[in-house]
């Protein structure tokens, strides 16, 4: 046993120098990736006084405090931003899911005149950058009096051509025979969709939901355009406000506490679903 291990090690160790270099590179990048997270966590538990007393910042603290977290929730309406973002994320994702599933079903299973033409048009819309349409949407929503409302925040984000495409591809992999069998049994289209297709395609649907949740949680541009009332701010806008006017600008530990609070949900989501997320993104997501 030992001899074999030894031999295996030897054959691998032939390129010891190479391996060391490879790991050095990987560790270096891992540090660069993780350090900001560590720093925000560390800073968020340093007291305001001790943070500002450190000319050379310390890499650890012996007296962690939660005062910054208390501050973050009391001095600025962080809880409000948080709740807003949750409402925005849940409603947007839910509506999008309904719309996307219905259209993907129509494209993949139903036969009707003009289907192919409409689908081609849908596909060509995938190439249109958001920046082009956001201007008119801003005017539309403003004129509709929907600024500073959840409707205004949500409505333009409830369709995604890409997710329709993704789901349609997945739906089409379900063998035709299942549909025919269901029709023979007298199952309605809607019941078939609900009882057969959605359960079979659950993995893809979960992926779509996770990606959309990430997108919603991080969205900044549209909420910024459409809200100037703090009561409707999402976390991204909240952070920006905190940065520019909250906590008297220099209270960096409190800022970091707020940053930690809004980062945690997604990091937990990622830790739980990292396989699914990475798989979903590699199937064609770009940062929305």
């Amino acid at each position, binding site marked *: *046993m030992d*001899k*074999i*291990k030894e*031999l*295996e090690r030897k*054959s691998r160790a032939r390129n010891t120098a190479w391996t060391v270099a490879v790991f050095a590179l990987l560790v270096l990048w891992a540090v660069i990736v993780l350090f900001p997270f560590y720093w925000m966590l560390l800073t968020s538990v340093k007291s305001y006084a001790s943070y500002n007393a450190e000319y050379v910042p310390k890499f650890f603290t012996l007296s962690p405090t939660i005062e910054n977290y208390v501050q973050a929730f009391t001095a600025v309406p962080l809880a409000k931003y948080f709740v807003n973002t949750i409402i925005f994320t849940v409603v947007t994702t839910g509506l999008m899911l309904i719309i996307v599933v219905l259209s993907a079903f129509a494209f993949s299973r139903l036969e009707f005149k003009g289907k192919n033409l409409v689908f081609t048009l849908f596909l060509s819309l995938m190439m249109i950058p958001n920046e082009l349409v956001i201007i008119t949407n801003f005017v539309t929503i403003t004129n509709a009096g929907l600024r500073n409302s959840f409707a205004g925040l949500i409505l333009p984000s409830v369709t995604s051509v890409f997710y329709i495409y993704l789901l349609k591809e997945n739906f089409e992999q379900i063998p035709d025979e299942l549909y025919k069998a269901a029709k023979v049994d007298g199952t309605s289209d809607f019941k078939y969709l609900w009882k057969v297709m959605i359960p079979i395609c659950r993995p893809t649907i979960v992926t779509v939901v996770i990606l959309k949740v990430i997108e919603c949680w991080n969205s900044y541009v549209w909420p910024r355009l459409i809200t100037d009332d703090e009561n409707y701010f999402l976390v991204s806008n909240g952070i920006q406000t905190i940065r520019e006017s909250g906590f008297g600008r220099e209270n960096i530990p409190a800022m970091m506490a707020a940053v930690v609070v809004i980062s945690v949900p997604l990091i937990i989501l990622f830790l739980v679903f990292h396989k699914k997320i990475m798989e979903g993104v590699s199937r064609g997501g770009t940062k929305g």
Partner: protein
Amino acid sequence: MKIVLEHLTKQFISRHNSSEIVTAVNDFNFEIPDGKLVGLLGPSGCGKSTTLNLICGLEVPTQGKIYFGELDVTDLPPENRGVGMVFQNYALYPHLTVRQNILFPLENLKGEQKLSKEVMNEKALEAARLVQIDTLMERKPSELSGGQQQRVAIARALVKTPGVLLLDEPLSNLDARLRLQTREQIRRIQKETGITTIFVTHDQEEAMSISDLIIVMKEGMMQQMGKPQEVYNHPANLFVAKFLGTPAINVFEGKILNHKAYIGEDAIMESDAEDQDIYVGIRPEGFIPDKKGEFSCHFDRIETTGRDTSIVCHNDRCISDTDIRVIVDSDDELNNENGIIRFNLKPNKTHLFSRKDETVI
């Protein structure tokens, strides 16, 4: 170039259970004479591909030595061994043309060995001619049939005129008709070049049909080595007997008593061995229908497939997975009384194996 393996062993730690050792190749000793075509034969997972990888140097043995001619190559990296290898899926570079694929190994040569463009092209064309693909030089692999891809892979392996050519399951990705053609091609190319060639296969018919020598493996152990017909006629053990031949050999439980071998109550042949329990293997072609024959079976049916007529029958002592199959001449007279059919057995087609270690008696 002759190839000698001495006590060659490859063990590694199991991927599933790190405290478990897998012995892929167990104490191999054999010598492959120069210029032969050798088939390395065994069921999947028996270590034949590992053996090939050890010979070409992609894997390092745990123990033992490999010699090419007189030269100990055990510690040489693959590029210094002068081997050519054809992979099961051919591993042709999809973005390069046939010509570029064949040139690839030549372009790797450095220093004194470096060749001029003209010489390289000449050599590539020569190799392509040998495998008869010289008219397809500017195509991409995706534009070739499976058989053509196979030949490009062989040309690429041959272009550096290696001392040893290794083929990993060369025919498994081809359809039945191409397989026959291609194996003739491999045979011809090997004869023309005279390069010592080892190929790995799990298909016994393939190995039997073109090899000068076959080596039968099981679970990392070499079972038998020899000329195909010799191995078929004189299997060293029950495994070899069962592995070679279609339809498979029929196996029965039997015993030796007073210098006679029995299956059940039927005394089938003489034997010098001492009294013991045995297995009896009888080739399908080893039965001669005879009313007075010494061996009896229950008749089931007759199957005629093309040129062969086979009798399907059963016997309580038979331990093969399928019913007994007997290949007979269509003009043999069949006797069938009350569902019992009797045979005489050909002694050279009937093999006795020890029940204990399954070796031939």
